[in-house]
């Protein structure tokens, strides 16, 4: 929609051009959320897509996604065969509420920074132990994990003027087996619970819980726990009153589905394969 209070749009060409951050500023990546709701508090949009960051870089140590990498580009990625977690990418892209047309604009960084509980890129990068690179206005940099960046519904850990530059998924995480479960109130609706399990060759098991909780949760175990122990760990990490509550699912159902999926994921990853 037209954002009538915007007075200026700045298209950045290099990091050195970054303007001083003011109240009423917003970073603009794809714009698919910014332009989807009234933004009466905003006065300036500072466009990051003009910086020309390569969308993704694949190295032996892992996959780095620029914050401005679109969901469409992410979904089209052809990853090395050893990265057996690759199907997760498609599963998570398809979990975005927006259509494939929105994928052409929506970005990895936008999904992370918007910090919606149902953000599927949040789920993907949490499960695959993404490391977020942040650029501060003073030129310094820092790294945070995804659960450190996404601190609550539509709340992120970025300081004013700080930019999410990229997220790196280590090769070790991309080389794990994965199991994916998702449910929403309608077949293609916004996720009410989105859980991902990973199992490494070393036996390490992790369960990522998103959408049903206000911020991403990753529970790691050196080896697969017993089912009851896993469910107890989830219950301990998410007290009953802390499941997310909005029109996309009532908290008691989200808890019920979270525990159900946790058990299914554990079973899927630990069943003895013939």
């Amino acid at each position, binding site marked *: 929609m*037209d954002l009538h209070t915007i007075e200026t749009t700045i298209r950045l060409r290099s990091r050195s051009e970054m303007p001083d951050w003011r109240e009423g500023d917003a970073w603009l990546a794809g714009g698919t959320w910014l332009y*989807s709701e009234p933004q*009466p508090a905003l006065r300036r949009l500072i466009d990051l897509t003009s910086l020309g960051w390569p969308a993704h870089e694949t190295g032996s140590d892992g996959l780095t996604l620029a914050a401005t990498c679109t969901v469409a580009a992410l979904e089209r990625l052809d990853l090395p065969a050893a990265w057996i977690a690759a199907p997760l990418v498609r599963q998570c892209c398809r979990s975005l509420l927006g259509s*494939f*047309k929105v994928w052409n604009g929506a970005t990895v960084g936008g999904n992370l920074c918007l910090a919606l509980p149902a953000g599927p890129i949040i789920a993907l990068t949490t499960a695959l132990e993404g490391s977020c690179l942040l650029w501060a206005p003073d030129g310094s940099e820092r790294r945070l994990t995804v659960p450190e960046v996404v601190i609550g519904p539509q709340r992120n850990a970025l300081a004013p003027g700080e930019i999410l530059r990229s997220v790196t998924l280590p090769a070790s995480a991309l080389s794990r087996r994965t199991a994916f479960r998702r449910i929403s109130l309608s077949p293609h609706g916004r996720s009410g619970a989105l859980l991902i399990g990973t199992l490494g060759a070393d036996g390490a098991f992790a369960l990522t819980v998103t959408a049903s909780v206000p911020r991403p949760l990753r529970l790691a175990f050196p080896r697969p726990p017993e089912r009851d122990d896993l469910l107890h760990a989830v219950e301990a990490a998410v007290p009953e009153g802390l499941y997310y509550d909005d*029109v996309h*699912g009532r908290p008691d159902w989200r808890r*019920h589905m979270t525990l159900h999926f946790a058990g299914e994921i554990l079973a899927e990853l630990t069943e003895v394969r013939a």
Partner: protein
Amino acid sequence: MRLTVNGHAHDADPRPGQCLRTVLREAGWFGVKKGCDAGDCGACTVHLDGEPVHSCLVPAFRAEGTEVTTIEGLSGPCRPGEAREPTHPVQAAFVAAQGFQCGFCTPGMVMTAAALDQGRRQDLGDALKGNLCRCTGYGAIRDAIAGIARVEAPEGACVGRSVPAPAAPLVVTGTARFTFDIPEAGMLHLKVLRSPHAHARIVAIDTGPARAVPGVVAVLTHEDAPPRRFSTGRHEDPRDDAADTLVLDPVLRFAGQRVAAVVAETEAAAEAGCRALRVTYEVLPALLDPARALDPDAPRVHGETNLAAEVRGEVGDVAAGIAEADLVYEETFTSQRVQHAHLETHGCAGWRDADGRLTLRTSTQVPFLTRDALCALYDLPREEIRVLCGRVGGGFGGKQEMLTEDLVALAVLKTGRPVKWELTRQEQFAATTTRHPMRVRVTVGAKRDGRITALGLDVLSDTGAYGNHAGGVLHHGCNEVLAAYSCPNKRVAGRAVHTHTPPAGAFRGYGLSQTIFALESALDEVARRLGVDPFALRRINAVRPGEPLVAHSLHPHDVVFGSYGLDQCLDLAQAALAEDPGPAPELGWHVGTGMAMAMLDTIPPRGHHAEAFAALLPDGTYRLRTGTAEFGNGSQTVHRQFAAQALQADPARVRIEAADTDAVGHDTGAYGSTGTVVAGQAVHRAALALAEAIRARAAERTGVTPEACRLADGTVETPKGVIPLNDLAPLEASGRSNGSPRSVAFNVQAFRVAVHPVSGAVRILTSVHAADAGVVINPMQCRGQVEGGVAQALGAALYEEVALDGEGAVATRTFRNYHIPACGDVPDTRVLFAETDDAVGPLGAKSMSESPFNPVAAALGNAIRDATGARLTATPFAPDRIFRAVAAACDLGERHPVSDQAR
């Protein structure tokens, strides 16, 4: 910046923060629609350098140097305003399948379909999740994409054939003109500040800061508004609805009510003006719970009582009927607040024409009643106001209200300038009307053999802050639901109450969807407990010709059995359900079937009038003038068929001018499913009269009798030779219909569902709908109405609820948070028609617009009951609301999940 649009260079100077959609519309590309303005509905889809995007989400400045293709340019380069032929294969396919009804979503749907590769076509549910259509139910859209045609050429008889909608080529090329598809140059923009409180009094409004905003032309407060009260609800008789509304009221009775309006040179200035208004409110206690409305200490919404309407009646002796029953079943069923969610929001543009006449181009189902309401409000004679429609982007009853015209008229009268007010999607959700939420207590008594001995309904309807349609919906909602059964003892006690919540209004079904959900669920439970098949229970008890059509009173009425196809509908639906098992359910899901029926009077009571003129023009073509609006109901298609049939003409020879208070003397409007049976009746009579006049003139010219003359396409054949029609022009004749007597139409819905016992997810495996529409004038279109009605009802049954926050404000203000069915949510529904010929309707036709909606929720709930053992008593049947009941019932082992053996 420079970009290429539809093959031609275009220079634009986008404002900061502007989106591409607006740049394109400002350049005259009106095929790019504004549906949700938020990237959810897809009506604004264009191709940007070959990739489909939602242009409302694309920052305009990013279009620099790009190539943009809009719906107008899909079939080749063009300039704004040029006529287009639907030559692109996808456009041709949408014409052939008639993959649209109102057509507002169609440009975006076509642009998206044109961008699908083979892979995406395999999963349309996923591929089209960003394209919402409220009318079609997606069946015709899926057919279009699959290349399946639904349209037929007229062969001989035009009536009974699936001839295409007159506007089809315009709709699929984006050149059909909807309400706001007009240039904005010189137009002022109106925006309103809305109440943040459910109940408050305006103590003061400081308009100074708003007036100081550059570009603001006028600020309108309650002090500028006329003192007369009116109802936003429009009926033939304005006294049907309580006059309780002011254009601007110092008392605010719901969160979202207008506080003040700002009129400015730009939308931005109007919005800035609204933000600058300084309002002092005295916040008052609010009543949000309808169950408390009649408590002595409940806050009052208007005057002495919160009772907005009441209906009480009894026929026979319900107590005696209960006493003689072998089984008595009582349960309370709840239907929630849902929204029409037509893709074109409410709004209008107003100006003074060259003669100084106040003119409003508006998105309405009732142009004449709106004109009359404005005359009363502003004390103007009818000649001084003209109300007209473009193509209307969906209505479903929501536009049987005056929600914008009163304020735009005030702004035009105050400023003397053209003024436009287009509601945003957020306003549409937050502050327009909804279905009436209802709580219905049902009592059923029945004998062991399935015979019903008593029916009782206790209804509590929440009409919200204003009484528009409160009485009409309550009375109608308690009528056909009971009249459909021939039980001798029936009783109704119904009340509509006010609360400080957004006003409910007319909504498809007009009260019946809520009461039918309750009664048809209860009857299913009765059948189950008696061990009687649910179809058989209806056969035993449903009303039959020869029996009186009685709900709860013996007052005389004008409803007759013009025809009767309920028996056929029950047979058709039962057989079709049995013969199609649907896809095999997955392991662990529980499967069951359910059905429900509905009856609807074909015309609203108390008078519904239409007038039509049919003219033979000097060029030998025909022109029809009608008052009724085309909003996806297909009335113009049917009107053209009636005229073509009566005049023995190719339908392409008949042009229609409609929905304009200048076109005819009076038209009650396009509500109550009257497009075919009232307006169509008038058209048919006008066309027959014109045919008569043509034959008479031909006879006079040739000296033969009129009976010897025969109309053909373009000529009149006489014993003395063939006369071209243009030799006989001009001629004009009129026809009228007063909407009485009325007949009855029937619908039966059946489902087979699978339910997941853990998650509560419901999947529809089979959907069958049998309809008694009398003689089906246009099978394709009637099927589309049924498919669309089922889909809209599935939304209300499974997903939708206008949720209020704790303060009474609407929390669900976007399609993202108010999920209407998308392609992947709607199964194919097999539509079957009874073969009947109505003695009342034109050429044997009956209405079929609202009624397919009505039996769906109950049929679905009954199928879930059959699958799981859980009797659900409140819609929507969303997984998070039903999983506990479903899991508990499944654990009791009432039904067994699908096992390997059973598959």
